[in-house]
Structure formats: C-alpha cells, structure tokens
C-alpha cells in the first residue's frame, strides 16, 4: 500500500503529469501552435511529447544512481551554486505557470461563463480555491486529478466526437503546413509548453521507484500527446488552421458548435465544469511545486507559512499585464524559455553524470 505520508504511486504520478500537461489545451496554446506551424500542428504534440519522455527518462536514470530530490541531485552533479540556480529556474517555471493560470483561467471564465463578474473577484476566487487545495498536499492533488481523469477525458472525447458532421478532411491540407523545417524548429521550441511534467522529478523521492516515474511518464505524457494531437486534428478539420490561429479558446468554440439534436447542443455547460476544475487543479499543482522548491532552497521545514503570502503575491502579479493580448504575448515568451527546463537542463545533468561516472571509474583504476 502507498498511503503513507509522502509516498506516491504511478496513479498519482499520472495525475500530476496530466494536470500539468492538459491545462494548455483549454487555453490559447492550440491557437498559438496553429499560428506557427499551420496544418501540421497535430504533429507538434507528438514530437514535443516524445522529447519530454526522453527528458524524463534521462532524469530518472540519474535518480537511480543518486538519492534525493531535484535540488540535491543538481547540487551533487553541478555544484551548490549551479544547482541552486537551476532549482531557482525551475521554481520560476512553476510559480510563473501558477500566476499565468490564475490570470488566463480567470479572464476566460469571464469570457465564457460569467460576463458580469468582476475580474478581481475571479482572480481572488481562483487563487484562494487553489491555495485551499495546496493545503491538502501534493499527494491529494495527484489523487484528485486521477479521480477526475475519466470525467475530463470523457468530456474531451465527447467534444471531439460530437462535431463529426462538421468535420472537413480537406482542411488538413496542404499536409506539410508551413514546411518541415518550421515544424522541426517549433516542435523542439514548443516542448517548453510541457515543462510542467518535470514535476515528476521534483517529487521523485516520493515515488516508489524510478520505474514508477517512467510508467507515469509514458502513460501520462504519451496519452496527453496523442490527445493534444487529436484535438489539433479536430479543430483544424473543423475551422481550418488560419481560423484556429485567430481563436482565443479553440476548444470552447468546438463546444459551442456542437449540435446533434435540440436536446444535445452547445455543451458549454459540461465544458465549463471541466474547465474550472482543470484550471484550479493546475494552479494548485504549480503553486505547490513552486513553493516546495522555494522552501527547499530556503531550507524551510514546511511550505505552510508561505502559502498565504505567495497566494497574495500571485493575485497581485496576475494584475500586471493590462489585457489578455499583452498577457498572451508574455506567456508565449515564457513557453519558449521553458524549453531550457524541459530539454537542455536534463541533458546537461545527464552529461554531467556520465562525466562524473567516468572520472570516478578512472580514479578507481589509478588506485
């Protein structure tokens, strides 16, 4: 059994990875990717997903040889200073994701569900809901997501299947999109959108074995990549890549367009419930991970005292960008910068481990 404090299994791992990965499809990220690669957008998730799995495998290899969490291992391999800098960078990724989630989900909640609600109230409600869940701990968050997973997946599949009368296969052409070079560049560059999956490595110590992490990574990242890809196929076949690039929330547009009969039409209601749950859970998971790294860096014994303070800061920071357009511009840059955290640092750590291992072997040989 695995219900002891701080022990997580593959199901919690899958839950945490999925919630980190799935939030982007509810937001403007599909439009952002369609704008860059056109009709070949559906390949991007597959490529970036494969690279994410490779990155996780490289890191899990390190966890087989070293004990401790991400901070400990980076310090062991790259020294205290570099280790701390890398951990600060990861902390920035998670905390910024939490801040952006609050902003984007709140803005879009007003857009799709509660047009008369004050934006400030929406910020506060999202942030406080997430903060309350953070108190329950990362284990609980993972379990809640795992419990919600069938409902989330079920509703997305309904969204993908229900508009079948409107699907236009020809919209997938020209099949090369804006060119394979563009695809390759963006697939690698946009791997940063999946940087949240590093959460598996942040809490690696809590998982049973390295194999548990790999199982969670394969199922969650693999499944999410296929789902992302299917979503791209459907939205491009429904609207065409040019129209998708102009949309702020493509998945919502699918929900709005469904009309199978007068009793099954405009299923935004289902969409809203899933949307809110995913938004809050994603914010909570990011916030918890960011706070965890912060407390590790500061050498604090617990994250609890930080929760109200950082939540307050999160609400304040969410107000910074004047409107959603400016916000999307900022978040695009953040996504691209996350590429380092997703691919570059894991490779650096892996290389450092190989070098260290060789040195150790040569030292042993001399002796």
């Amino acid at each position, binding site marked *: *059994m695995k*219900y002891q404090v701080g022990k997580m299994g593959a199901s919690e791992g899958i839950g945490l990875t999925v919630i980190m990965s799935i939030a982007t499809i509810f937001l403007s990220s599909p439009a952002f990717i369609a704008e860059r690669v056109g009709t070949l957008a559906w390949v991007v998730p597959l490529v970036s997903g494969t690279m994410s799995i490779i990155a996780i495998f490289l890191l899990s290899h390190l966890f087989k040889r070293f004990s401790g969490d991400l901070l400990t291992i980076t310090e062991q391999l790259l020294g205290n200073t570099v280790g701390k800098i890398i951990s600060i960078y990861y902390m920035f990724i998670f905390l910024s994701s939490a801040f952006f989630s609050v902003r984007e989900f709140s803005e879009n*909640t007003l857009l799709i569900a509660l047009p008369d609600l004050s934006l400030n109230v929406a910020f506060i409600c999202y942030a406080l809901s997430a903060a*309350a869940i953070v108190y329950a701990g990362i284990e*609980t968050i993972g*379990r809640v997501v795992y419990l919600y997973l069938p409902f989330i997946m079920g509703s997305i599949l309904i969204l993908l299947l229900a508009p079948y009368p409107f699907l236009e296969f020809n919209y997938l052409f020209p099949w090369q999109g804006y060119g394979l070079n563009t695809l390759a560049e963006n697939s690698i560059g946009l791997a940063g959108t999946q940087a949240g999956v590093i959460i598996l490595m942040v809490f690696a110590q809590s998982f049973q074995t390295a194999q548990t992490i790999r199982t969670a990574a394969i199922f969650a990242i693999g499944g999410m990549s296929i789902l992302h890809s299917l979503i791209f196929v459907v939205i491009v076949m429904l609207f065409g890549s040019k129209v998708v690039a102009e949309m702020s929330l493509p998945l919502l547009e699918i929900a709005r367009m469904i009309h199978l009969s007068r009793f099954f039409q405009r299923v*935004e*209601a289902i969409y809203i419930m899933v949307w*809110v749950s995913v938004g809050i859970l994603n914010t909570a998971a990011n916030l918890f991970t960011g706070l965890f790294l912060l407390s590790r860096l500061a050498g604090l014994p617990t994250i609890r005292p930080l929760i109200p303070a950082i939540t307050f800061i999160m609400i304040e920071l969410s107000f910074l960008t004047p409107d959603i357009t400016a916000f999307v511009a900022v978040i695009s840059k953040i996504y691209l910068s996350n590429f380092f955290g997703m691919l570059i640092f894991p490779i650096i750590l892996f290389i450092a481990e190989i070098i260290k291992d060789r040195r150790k072997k040569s030292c042993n040989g001399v002796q």
Partner: protein
Amino acid sequence: MDDNIIIRLYHSVKSILDYQPPTGSPNFVLDEYRPHDNQPANSMPNNKFTLEDLNALLRYSNRLQTFTAKVNTILRSGLWKQEARSIKLEFAALEQQFSQLTPILLYYDHSKTVPKLQRLSTSIDENKQTLATIYRLPRNQAIVIRDFSISGMPRLKAFAIFIDGMVDTKLLNNSVLHPLMLFNCTRELYNSHLTEHIIKECLPSNQVEHGLTFDDVENAVNSGNTAIIFDGIDEAIIVGTSGVEHRSIDRPQTEQSVQGSQSSFTENLLVNTGLVRSMLRTSDLIIETVKVGSRSQMNCAIMYIESIANTSLVDEVRHRIQGVKTDFLGDTGELIQCIEDHPSIPFPQSLSTERPDRVAANLAEGRVAILLDGNPFVHIVPVSFFTFFHSAEDFSLKPVIVNFMRILRLLGAFIATTLPSIYISISYFHQEALPTELLLAIAGSRENVAFPAWLEILLMELSFELIREAGIRVPGFLGSSIGIVGALILGQAAVYAHIVSPIVVIIVAGTGLASFSIPEYRMASVVRIIRFFMLALAVTFGLVGVAVALLWITVLFCRMKSFGMPYMSPIAPKSIAGYDVVLRGPIAEQSNRPDALNVKDPFK
C-alpha cells in the same frame, strides 16, 4: 371593601418604586457547582482519615464487647463445650480484624482517597460500611444489600449486594441464595479455602469468580452481577446473575432487506456478540472489552478476527477507545465521534449497522467492529466512501442486479447534491444549455411567480426538510401520513398560490427522492446539508461555483482517512480492490480481501 383600580395602580407603582425584599424562602437558582461548598470551613483533609480510623476502631471494640458478653453468657450457662468451636472461630475472626487495624494498614487503606481502590476487609461490617459510602446508601435505593447467614455449625454471616432491576431474580434466588442458605456441613470457618469450597460445592452458577477489592465488587455489581461478602473473609464471591430486561431479537428497522438475514442487534451486548459469533464460528474471533465513561462504565466490545485483522489497526482502535476521557457515554455514535480521524468533518467515517450479517461480513474482510452495551448499532471501521452505498442485501443478489442498484444509489447521491444548484446555475447563468422549447416552458411556468428562483428552491427545500423531520418525529402511521399529505398539499397549494413554479416542485421532489436512495442515514443527512452550500455557490457563480464546490468535496474526500485508511480507497490511492467497491463482481472473482486494509491474510 376591595381596592378600586386607582388604589391598585397606586400600590403597583409604589411597589416598583419602594422595593422591599421578598420575605419567603428564595427561589431555587441552579448555580455552578463548587465542590468546597459542602465541606465545613475548618475541616482538614487529614481529619477525615483520622475520623474513619477511629470509627473502625470503635466498630471493632463494639464487636469485641459483644463477643465478650456472649462468651460470658456461655460460660455462665455451662454450654461452653458445645459452643467452644464457634467461640474459637469467632475469636480467630476478631484477631484477623484486629490485625487489619494496625496503624500502618489503616494509613495505607485510607491513603487511597477513592474507597473503591481499597481491598476488602475481613470484617463484614467494615465492608458494608465502605460499600454504603461507594453507593451512597441509604439514599441510593436501587442497591440491595441482602443479609443472610450460611447454615451450618456455626452459622456464617454474609450479605449479597446487587442492583435491583439488573439481576435475574429467579437466578439469584435459585442459584445463589437458596443453595447458600441451605448449605449444611461442618466446616472450618475463617480459613483461606472457604470461598473455594463454597464455589465448588454450593454455587451451581456457571459464572463465578473472586473479587479482592471494592473496585472488583463495584464493577461486578454495576454490570448486573451479585457480590457475596462473608464475615471473616477478605474476599468476595462474584456470581453472574445479570438479567437486564432487553428487547428480543427483531427485524432490522433501518436496514430492511428482502433477501438475507432478518435479525438485528438489540440493546444487550452479550446478545449482540452472540449474534455475530453465531455467524462467525471461528475460534480466533476476538472480543475485547473496554470500559468507557468514568461514571457510565459502559462495556465497549472490540471485535475482530485475530488471523485477519491488521494488528496495528486493532491496537489503534483499542488505544483510541481507552483514550476517551468522559464521564458518560451512552451511544455508539457518540463514542465514534470521540475516536474518529476527523471529528469536525460531517461525513461519516464508520459504517453504522444493526445487522449481524453485515458485521460478520466486514469482520471477515479484516475490519474491526465496535459495540457498546445498551446500543443496537454497531460501528465498523475502517471504511471507504463507497461502503456507504452498499446495502445489506447486496451480498444476496446477483452482480448484475446489485451493480444496477449501486450505480443508481451513486447517481442518487449526485442528484441529491447537485440538482437544485445545477437548475439555478442554468436558469441564471447558462440558459444556452437548455433547448429553446424547454427554456420557454420553464420561463412560462415562472411567469406569475413573485420570488426569484433561488428563493423558490430554498423555500421548497426547507419545507421538504420540515416535512421529513416532522414525519420522523410524529409516531406511527401519523408520521407517514403527515409526510405524504404535507408534501402533496404544500406543493400543490404553493403552485396555485404562485409562490413556487411547478418545475421547482419537480426538482425538489426529485432531489428528495434521490437523497432517500442513499442507504446510510448519516451520509444522506450530510448530502442534504451540502446541497444548501452548493446552492449558495451556484447562485453566486453558476456552474463555476458548482464545479468549485465539487472539487473541494473531492479534495476533502481524498484527504480524509478512516482509521488510517484513505477514504477514497481503492481508487485514490489506487489499490487492489477485491471487486466489490463501486461494482460487485461474481463471487468467484472476490477471492482477495481489500488491499487497503493491509490484512494479515489477503486471500479469502
């Protein structure tokens, strides 16, 4: 001549202005109890011991004086040869009493401030005196002290102490008093083997044991047994004569089933444990008894199967029950609230059942049952959320039928929690979710209603709760009649009066029906409360509020534990389920016990 109105008015005003204290005795005021009020102001704590010592010595001297007078009479009458044996033995008894009156022993006994912790005396009068202190005699009239003497040469003075109404009088007369009073043999009085001899030769009762302290005597008497105390012997014989009147085994009142066992627990602990044992005839079915409540001293039984139940779980249950510090505990529900993991969370964390078959099935899975004397409901721990949607007859029916019912119950719980809030959300914020015709029909039905939709729902929900509560409180057939008539008349009249719309009546009725599909009463009650909380969020934030509320509830469930076992087990965290959680599989596929229980023997 009577006073006229002006004079009476004058007197009234005068009495207000010119206050005179009342001359009669003051009215009773229930003030806070101050323990020192009853003690004399200048009494010293040590004086009490001195006084008791002196009283004991005085009683001894009186007895000695009586004995001397008796000896004197016998010697004068010339019957000393016949009475020599009796005099010798009585003298030995006096010697024993004297040896207990040495200053050291007196100090030791009286240093125990609670008299019941003292050991029994060889003097029957001393013992009677101490018991009178413990039971506040003669004020406490339920306590019976029956003096008698055991026949023989010489006759031995003794008394039996029991509580009237708690003993089986026939048993007491036939198995205790009758054999003892007719006991006729020559014996060595005041020797150490007399009690053994009486137990073996004279008492036909099957439950007999020795008592050495007043605590032993008190516990036995309070449980309905009889204690017999003899002159000259510093121990008591405790005979099992418990015969509290109790309800006979009846059909279950709250967990009725079409199939399966039809017996239910009663208020008698021994009957209840016997019922379970009759279904689990294994020698490793352990029944541990713990006393709870410093004043009520209720027997609480912890039942488990030694070879299956996790030892740490049993230890934890025992530890928590032993840790309950209260003077009165009369109900299992009360006890569970003292020992559960999250007392402040309203969701039930133990399964309450009145069916022995359910207890037996759960014990066989590795769970622990908690029984309390005087209560027909047994609590089973640990449990998961899904346990509350299982019913008693699930075990008797085919999986297809059971699964259909279980899904229906879960759906019922979901509807009972969310239907009113979803209606409010859709009618206030998300009208596009409804087909146009339905939307127009709802709008048409609400056209003449004066109140907003949320107030309609709130009024009807509160009315429904009132009818339900009244239906439970009013006894017999009248209760159900009030429920049906009240609902029909209220609903119909409210619609005619344009206080509520017909759709609201349908929604509230559907919600109420759905809430009754939850088999566990406590879970159904919580669901009804949560509905109001969700309604408030739905009125404010629409479906966003409903989603947030559902998320919080799920988080709460995933965080909760029932006696260390996760509440959402075996789904979150995932563990091997044994195929009887949400759905029930074929019997052949239920060979595993729930993994979450971490039992000693995982296979059935």
